[in-house]
């Protein structure tokens, strides 16, 4: 009976995804993602955040298809400019450029782009398979979590997120606390009393997530890029790129197959861990391939494995990064936080109950991830000339148009000019945070998790008659708290070692 209903769900999900509308959305998403990801300075997160306002008037599945396609496309797109220009379009494509650009200099740019694409698709497919296998059992376990467990889990996630992205742990924690504070603006989730609204009616529903996201992630980045362009010596430089050289042979791909598989596993593992993300995965994948190759000296000089490993690893993050979001309602990375924001805007609440209440939607999501990979395999190569034309454009010409799109994006969802002002405010805040080395991602994730943390914290305290020890006496909750403390200690030690290393290299440099 259970098996039959499972196959019914799978059948319905496949039928949902196979509609022409969704396939069109995936194709448009992948295409947009590849093109935007290829533009240096425009990351995948920016691309997704800019696309969300467009999706507001469409069905949830169509919208999520578009966003997933865009995400997958942007992760690969970053490698295009990395390989052709030695300027990675996205941060996770940085290790790809280490060997990709030397291949371009050797006249093998097309071969490198093909290898990056095939490795990306292989990594993404392996990761999707792991998501498909892991999400249902974790969801079943998570359904049993009570308010105390969820509060401790959120705390654990916040600690991990605070430890990444900022220039120091203290700054990461400050961003997290600021996010929690901002999350309390609006009506109290329990007794519906106004909090920190200053009598502004627009704030009753809280700070608009999309306006905040566009401001913090996109407008702030536009300002950062603007600063780079005005300080650059050649702001209007037109990049010269060429697509030429031999094609990838099956023998060459076969030689890299082992590296692709191992890097995919590394990427999948990194994706499932909150706060680790695709940048770390790409570097770990590259380094592992270099060390395991037996010929590390060939890396950095145009080794195909050096292109395959980081691309497989960073794309393998996409599938498993969705595991904590779908099963626990916890976004482990910035991209997933934005996708989670899109879920929430469309009235879907990611978390263990999503699997129970909307199983067809969740399995549709799995299918559309796989279809996105297949579209990614077929679409980019014929469109590479378009992508290379776009990466030639000077950044200075794109920034004003992106700013205009930010204005539109903030306005479109609620048709509220107040949201536009909120977006601009957070754009400036995000720019200042980046200048000070404070992670906007930690702030955003804390803002998203804030209501969940507050509701469960107050519920846990109410159920235990105000006894704070409830978080320690329940074993799973206590485990998450121990993990939170241990993670904090590890993160502090890692930052300290990193600083010590920097200090040592500065001393060595001075001595030299």
């Amino acid at each position, binding site marked *: 009976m259970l098996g039959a209903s499972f196959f019914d769900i799978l059948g319905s999900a496949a039928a949902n995804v196979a509609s022409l509308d969704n396939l069109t959305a995936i194709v448009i998403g992948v295409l947009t993602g590849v093109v935007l990801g290829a533009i240096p300075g425009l990351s995948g997160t920016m691309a997704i955040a800019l696309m969300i*306002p*467009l999706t507001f*008037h469409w069905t949830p599945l169509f919208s999520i298809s578009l966003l997933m396609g865009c995400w997958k496309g942007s992760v690969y797109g970053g490698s295009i400019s990395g390989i052709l220009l030695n300027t990675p379009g996205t941060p996770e494509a940085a290790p790809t450029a280490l060997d990709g650009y030397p291949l371009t200099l050797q006249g093998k740019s097309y071969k490198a782009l093909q290898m990056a694409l095939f490795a990306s698709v292989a990594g993404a497919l392996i990761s999707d398979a792991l998501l498909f296998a892991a999400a249902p059992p974790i969801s079943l376990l998570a359904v049993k979590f009570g308010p105390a467990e969820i509060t401790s889990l959120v705390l654990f996630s916040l600690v991990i997120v605070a430890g990444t992205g900022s*220039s*120091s742990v*203290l700054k990461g924690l*400050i961003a997290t*606390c*600021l996010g*929690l*504070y*901002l*999350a*309390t603006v609006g009506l109290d989730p*329990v007794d519906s*009393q106004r*909090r*920190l*609204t200053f009598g502004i009616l627009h704030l009753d529903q809280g700070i608009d997530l999309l306006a905040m996201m566009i401001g913090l992630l996109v*407008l702030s980045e536009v*300002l950062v890029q*603007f*600063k780079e*362009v*005005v*300080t650059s010596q050649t*702001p*209007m430089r037109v990049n010269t790129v060429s697509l030429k050289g031999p094609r990838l042979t099956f023998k060459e791909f076969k030689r890299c197959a082992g590296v692709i598989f191992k890097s995919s596993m590394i990427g999948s593992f990194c994706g499932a861990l909150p706060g680790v993300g695709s940048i770390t995965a790409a570097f770990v994948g590259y380094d592992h391939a270099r060390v395991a190759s037996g010929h590390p000296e060939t890396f950095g000089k145009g080794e195909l494995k050096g292109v395959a490993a980081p691309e497989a690893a960073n794309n393998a993050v996409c599938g498993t990064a969705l595991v904590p979001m779908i099963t626990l309602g916890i976004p482990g990375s910035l991209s997933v936080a934005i996708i989670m924001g899109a879920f929430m805007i469309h009235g879907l609440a990611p978390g263990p109950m999503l699997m129970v209440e909307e199983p067809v939607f969740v399995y549709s999501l799995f299918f559309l991830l796989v279809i996105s990979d297949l579209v990614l395999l077929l679409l980019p190569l014929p469109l590479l000339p378009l992508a290379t034309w776009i990466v030639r454009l000077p950044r*200075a*010409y794109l*920034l*004003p*148009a992106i*700013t*205009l*799109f930010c*204005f*539109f994006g903030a*306005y*479109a969802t609620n*048709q509220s*000019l107040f949201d*536009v*002002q909120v*977006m*601009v405010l957070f754009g*400036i805040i995000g*720019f200042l945070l980046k*200048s*000070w*080395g404070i992670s906007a991602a930690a702030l955003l994730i804390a803002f998203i998790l*804030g209501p969940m943390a*507050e509701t469960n*914290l*107050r519920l846990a*305290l*109410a159920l235990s008659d105000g006894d704070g020890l409830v978080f320690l006496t329940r074993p799973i909750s206590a485990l998450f708290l121990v993990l939170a403390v241990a993670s904090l200690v590890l993160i502090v030690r890692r930052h300290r070692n990193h*600083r010590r290393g*920097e*200090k040592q290299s500065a001393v060595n440099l001075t001595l030299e």
Partner: protein
Amino acid sequence: MPSRSQKQMSSDFWLGLGIAAGAGIGIVLIRAQVGPLFQARSILPLVGAGGCLILGLCLALHAYSGQMQTSKSVESGMTSMQMMRLTGAIAVIILHAIFLKYLGLVVAGISLQVMLLTLVGSRNIMAITLLPLASVAALYFGISILLGVPLPEGLLWQGG
């Protein structure tokens, strides 16, 4: 002349103090806008503001004790003209957020882009003219007309 690391230390010191001061104001606001500090609905705002206060002070202390000397520098190294162009761009964006209500997205969008292109250093008249027109046209026809997503129209053009 102060070294790069000294500048960073000083910057973090003032940043920490600034955050702590801001968090102090945040706690006062909780008292005024939420209610007594130690009640259920003040818990999370208090955790947020209190956390910022303590961590801000820790950051200032940490910087003061010179332990953050090797963290990455945030010094901009901008000339006064470059700084003026950046400030100008931020001012233009703020002004457009205010006047969008009156001008509408089409007119405001074109003027915003023309100003930003000028500030970014473009001297190509064709680019300054055509790029704003093309992007606004794409937004208007592609999104407003084709997808039916409304754009702000502007009170000035409605006789209001």
